[in-house]
């Protein structure tokens, strides 16, 4: 509990997580993002940038899912043969 304020690399106390581990995770996250994947200049891309882009990307994904589910709900509400078409398409995939 006394090591809470320590800014040293080995932040003792409750958190035993190293900086390198966090950097690795951020790198892995960077690989997922479509915009930062190609330019993998890890020196230039800061962690804040990665996190910001991650937030934006997740919001984009949420919006896409919402949009798709709206379309699906319209589809389900409109026609009765959508069910048959679904089953048929899944079987013949």
């Amino acid at each position, binding site marked *: 509990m006394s090591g809470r304020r320590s800014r040293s690399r080995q932040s003792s106390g*409750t958190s035993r997580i190293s900086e390198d581990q966090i950097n690795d995770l951020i790198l892995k996250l960077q690989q*997922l993002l479509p915009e930062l994947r190609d330019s993998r200049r890890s020196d230039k891309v800061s962690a804040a940038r990665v996190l910001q882009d991650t*937030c934006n990307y997740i919001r984009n994904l949420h919006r896409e899912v919402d949009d798709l589910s709206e379309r699906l709900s319209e589809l389900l509400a409109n026609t009765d043969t959508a069910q048959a078409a679904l089953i048929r398409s899944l079987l013949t995939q």
Partner: protein
Amino acid sequence: MESISPVSNQITQPTTTTTTTTTTSSSDRSRRKRRKKSQPSSVDSSQSTSLEKWRSEKQQQIYSTKLVRALRELRISQQPTSSSSSSNPRGGRAVREVADRALAVAARGKTLWSRAILSKAVKLKFRKQKRQRIPNPSPTKTTTLTTGSISIRSKKQRATVLRLKAKGLPAVQRKVKVLSRLVPGCRKQTLPVVLEETTDYIAAMEMQIRAMTAILSAVTSPPPPPPGHDGGHTHMLG
């Protein structure tokens, strides 16, 4: 006796992620058509990274089947008497929740966000039925009986995002907090946990989008049945 062995075979094999009761037809289909692709997934079963799991074709088929089944039930339960009710705003939200729940089930409960999504649905059901429980906003893994003392204890024990000084920059801290709010179930988690959950969550959502797009495109313009077909049943049994 013969019925038991294939069941146990499915349980012991870590690669076949399908449950035994449901989706047996989908596993047959996937096994018949994707036999070659299942082999690489069995090779890296020991260190199957979450990303590869969400990118595999088999996982997408499993999810699509679950989703279609859930949508069918949703449609049956939601059927209004007037057939001319188009552009139902509630319907979109319901479909989104169904899709998220199916995605959480496909995650097999190994990740925080999947458990949070599932517990959210369960909590809502309880709250509607009983109305006795304390409304708890934090979607943690524990039950809805978390009181204030437990949350205080968790703050002292774990280095939450607020306390961790490894990345002491305020900008990074802020963004991580925002991120932890976006990913379900990560509001009071430590920094590496949030990052790890985020990677899995992004991969899962990408698969969700791919699957939903495939379903939509398959339904809106269904491919014509191939010639030389006696009917639908031969394909199913073949």
